[in-house]
């Protein structure tokens, strides 16, 4: 029983991280109809930047913020330099370019930051909390993860629903030509969308790094699981990213716990196959209405 509880808690915290990365994927999909396969590597790179700062005794939270800002800049640069020139070309091209970005960043991280295994210090204690007499697999750091992702989600909600910028972003995503006719600078909005998505990814990277062995491919599986989560929830639904993340996190936690961790990716594949066969648009996606 305690295994089940621990697996569940573990699944929830992992799920929140998948949700954060999935949210970034959703932003980019809604804005540009591209899946950014480089999302994980971009997050990994900014996390490496943070660790480099920490090595130089920079204040933890400063390094944390620096990583997020680096993500913002990186997202904007990638959209402007790599993605925008491809608009109007065949749809496979951005997919391949983001894959290129994926390994480019892994190679760069390995070259610049060295291959030796580092560790990323956690912001808070990773010791399991004690409730009464039982220790559970839930630590202060896990609480931090939950809070951070919830703040991210709420921030996104507020941005989209309650601000003019959010209105412009939604309009640019739903109907770019009409938005342009209403004076929305759609090009800049798309760049901003990528930048914000990259921030979500960077946050996820900072949350994952203390829990795994830190190397240039530490985000590979996270990206893949986040993709599964995003597809499960619906590639155009932020709510779906959250729900999909939690479901995926839980499911994979149980698979890993009861069947063995080597089978987790297979579990993700199974989830993906089921979703794509039964309800390819995902749980929460809205069917695209016709434009009139």
């Amino acid at each position, binding site marked *: 029983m305690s295994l089940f509880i621990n697996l569940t808690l573990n699944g929830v915290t992992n799920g929140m991280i998948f949700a954060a990365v999935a949210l970034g994927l959703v932003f980019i999909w809604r804005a540009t109809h591209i899946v950014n396969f480089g999302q994980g590597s971009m997050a990994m790179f900014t996390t490496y930047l943070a660790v480099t700062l920490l090595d130089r005794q920079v204040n933890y939270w400063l390094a944390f913020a620096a990583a997020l800002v680096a993500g913002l800049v990186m997202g904007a640069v990638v959209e402007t330099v790599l993605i925008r020139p491809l608009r109007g070309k065949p749809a496979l091209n951005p997919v391949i370019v983001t894959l290129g970005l994926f390994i480019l960043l892994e190679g760069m991280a390995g070259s610049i930051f060295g291959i030796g295994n580092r560790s990323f210090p956690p912001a808070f204690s990773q010791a399991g909390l004690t409730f009464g007499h039982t220790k559970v697999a839930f630590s202060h750091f896990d609480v931090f993860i939950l809070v951070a992702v919830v703040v991210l989600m709420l921030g996104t909600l507020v941005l989209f629903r309650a601000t003019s910028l959010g209105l412009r972003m939604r*309009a640019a995503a739903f109907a770019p030509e009409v938005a342009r*006719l209403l*004076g*929305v600078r759609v090009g800049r909005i798309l760049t901003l969308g990528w930048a914000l998505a990259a921030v979500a990814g960077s946050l996820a990277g900072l949350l994952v790094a203390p829990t795994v062995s830190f190397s240039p491919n530490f985000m590979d599986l996270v990206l893949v699981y986040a993709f599964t989560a995003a597809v499960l929830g619906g590639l155009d639904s932020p709510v779906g990213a959250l729900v999909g993340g939690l479901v995926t996190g839980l499911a994979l936690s149980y698979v890993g716990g009861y069947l063995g961790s080597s089978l987790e990716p297979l579990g993700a594949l199974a989830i993906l196959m089921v979703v794509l066969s039964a309800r390819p648009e995902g749980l929460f996606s809205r069917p695209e209405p016709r434009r009139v």
Partner: protein
Amino acid sequence: MLDVEDLSVSYGAVRALQGVTFQAQDGSVTAVLGANGAGKTTLLRTVSGLVKQRSGTVSYDGEKLTGLSVENIVRLGISHVPEGRGVIEELTVDENLRLGTLWQFNRGHRRSVLDEIYDLFPPLAERRSRMASTLSGGERQMLAIGRALSSKPKLLLLDEPSLGLAPMVTAQIMAMVQRLARETRLTVVLVEQNVRSALSIAEEAVVINLGRVVVADRAATVAADTQLRHHYLGF
């Protein structure tokens, strides 16, 4: 004043417009008429910057529009209601209207501008928090025009507003457009297949056939020329 000079537009090898020249005076309604595929929609899309011209110029109040981006043309006070209206279904009526005010007005002003639009179109006021997908055809047309007006433009480009609308609704909309032009010195360029209703509210008329201007004259003159009407306008 909108000044179109020797405008030529091509889609690949297809010549959509050739040597189109005409003016639209301030505070007047200019009807652009012609058969399907004559190039009327292309003309509006070129003015608003969605389509790049091959040669020729478009200027408004002396400022050259050709070569500017859509967003910058809009900021010169030009609003385009596209063919098909372009109502954003996933947003509410209020959000659709607000979208037009964002670049022009700061927070304080926006509400009052929106209230003016709601006064102009009472049915929209009733439905302001409803999703745009729930509106009828006539209501959508009102929303599209209201949205275009919400930035207080000087030039309004209307592409086939009567499309899919019942005659009575069309008449109401046309009457409103005419009133706006007269009362607010709004310049209107109206592309229409419904020639009668267009000519009934227009001062000037431009007839386009196969991408070329056939006639540019007073609307009354064009309406009276039965041969012209038979040949190019179908009645």
